[in-house]
């Protein structure tokens, strides 16, 4: 086909989104750093910023060093990784399902991981060291079951969501049954169920780090595919994309990320739903910007909420997952009603 290119004489309109998106990116990085700093400073003992600095970069036996280096920093970094994993998984899933209500829970990650974790905690408490890996496998298995159930010459978003709802309620029922039959052991399960960073330290961070890095590298390769899938199955096929295999890869990656996160911090909900949703309202559907900004937003939200959860209710360590839902849900509703774009 011959292309006859004639230069338009009209004035080119500059892309106004570029400036806006750069600004949003800078602001969100600043907010993340701020959340990290405030997180290091606050808690049952307040430590001024300068002492935080000394505690991080100078080895000593001081109490500040103990608190900042051994307790707060690894906890914040674990929260950072968990937030990134959950928000990126949510952003991907909302795209491939073309549904703003999709989150890692929809494909069974939470219920599968949750059931596996509850089985370990209640039936095999002496094997508690294997909890993360069991929860991770449980999450993956549930997602595979959901995908397999929805397959009928292809896995349409609608069938995936329906299969997810069915599998979730089945696994949820099994989880509840286990807890009721072993009500004396439920106390140990509850913090994990609501998602908590309590007691998370360097080993947790070191476990989660490789999963996050691998997941982030893989997501770079799936950006283009996600950008085609949001156009709809037909449009993506017409652009020469292999829709089914692309969707499967994105679902697997999201399961991998969310499964890794919940195996370490428990069932932190809401981050995977609300962060990508808000970020999409701010920057639009282009995954090249939506994904990094969701990752930063997820990390910021988890760190900020955990800081609040452990300082506001001192001496009680409030599970961050509950606080996220308590504060996040009304804020989310407010945003939905207001409509960020006006």
């Amino acid at each position: 086909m011959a292309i006859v290119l004639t230069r338009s004489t009209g004035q080119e309109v500059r892309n106004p989104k570029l400036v806006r998106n750069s600004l949003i990116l800078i602001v969100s990085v600043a907010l993340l750093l701020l959340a990290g700093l405030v997180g290091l400073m606050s808690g049952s003992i307040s430590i001024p910023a300068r002492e935080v600095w000394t505690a991080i970069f100078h080895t000593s036996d001081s109490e500040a060093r103990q608190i900042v280096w051994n307790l707060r920093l690894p906890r914040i970094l674990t929260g950072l990784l968990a937030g990134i994993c959950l928000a990126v998984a949510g952003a991907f899933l909302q795209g491939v399902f073309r549904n703003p209500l999709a989150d890692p829970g929809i494909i069974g990650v939470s219920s599968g991981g949750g059931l596996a974790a509850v089985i370990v905690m209640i039936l095999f408490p002496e094997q508690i060291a294997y909890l993360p890996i069991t929860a991770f496998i449980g999450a993956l298995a549930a997602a595979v079951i959901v995908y397999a159930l929805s397959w009928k010459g292809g896995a349409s978003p609608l069938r995936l969501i329906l299969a997810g709802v069915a599998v979730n309620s089945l696994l949820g029922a099994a989880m509840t049954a286990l807890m009721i039959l072993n009500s004396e052991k439920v106390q140990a399960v509850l913090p994990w169920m609501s998602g908590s960073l309590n007691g998370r330290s360097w080993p947790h961070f070191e476990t989660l780090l490789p999963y996050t890095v691998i997941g982030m590298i893989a997501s770079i390769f799936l950006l283009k595919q996600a950008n085609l899938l949001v156009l709809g199955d037909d449009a993506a096929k017409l652009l020469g994309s292999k829709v089914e295999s692309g969707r499967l890869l994105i679902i697997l990656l999201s399961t991998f990320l969310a499964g890794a996160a919940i195996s370490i911090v428990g069932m932190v909900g809401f981050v995977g739903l609300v962060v990508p949703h808000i970020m999409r309202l701010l920057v639009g559907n282009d995954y090249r910007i939506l994904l990094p900004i969701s990752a930063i937003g997820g990390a910021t939200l988890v760190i900020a909420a955990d800081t609040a959860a452990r300082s506001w209710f001192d001496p009680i360590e409030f599970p961050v997952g509950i606080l996220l839902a308590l504060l996040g849900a009304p804020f989310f509703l407010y945003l939905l009603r207001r409509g960020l774009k006006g």
Partner: protein
Amino acid sequence: MNQALTASELKYGYRPSESIVEGFNLNVSSGEWLGIVGPNGSGKSTVLRMLARLVTPQRGTVSMSGQNMANMNSKAIARQMTMLTQSQEASLDITVRDLVRRGRNPHLKWYEECRGKHEEVVDWALQVTSMRALQHRSLLELSGGERQRAWLAMCMAQTPCTLLLDEPTTYLDIAHQLELMELIRLLNREQGITVIMVLHDLNQAARYCDRIVAMKQGSVVREGKPSEVFQVDFFRDVFGIEAKVHNDEGVPVFLPCGVVRPLVHEGIT
């Protein structure tokens, strides 16, 4: 004339006993504008989706320039043929230009980004569809007609030889309908793009198409130039209506007068 697209003995049905399309044959020459018409449930949209390889025929083959499409790479097909679907994903918040850029996907390797000469094709596609002034707007801010043109611009960025359209004017008012049809005519005449279009408005079909294929119950019942096909008995046999057919400078124009028989609800797709 070269054959752009050939379909032979296509069959498709949801149940083994009932076929939506059966024994469908079609030859499309390159550069022609073909209109597919027929009543609801006649299988015309299903045929179009089989031609676009969105639906796999249960029997029969579709060939593009003599090559069986079932054996072709999906990107190779997307470089030569695309389709403007009837409705598109409505809630997409991306700029027109970003949408049109995605039309370059079949021409890019998996690691390549749309830049350099690909951006020039994007410029061209925006220009030819008169979307240049709106290129940095979000799809959400566009009217129905503008949005349709944005998706057409994406199709054009694929630089296809064949463009399929599935009732593209359904949701547009009459001025936007004609605007779109004129634009397609421009692409057909000046860029030499083969156009295959399913459409409901028979007068528009008569005015714009080179050739009409009429379908009923899953197969072709009439075929030919608009003036040959659009006769009084055609409207009676295919659509079950009485109609007067006038001649407007060589273009048949029809006026519906009434239903021949009470409409029985046949499987409406």
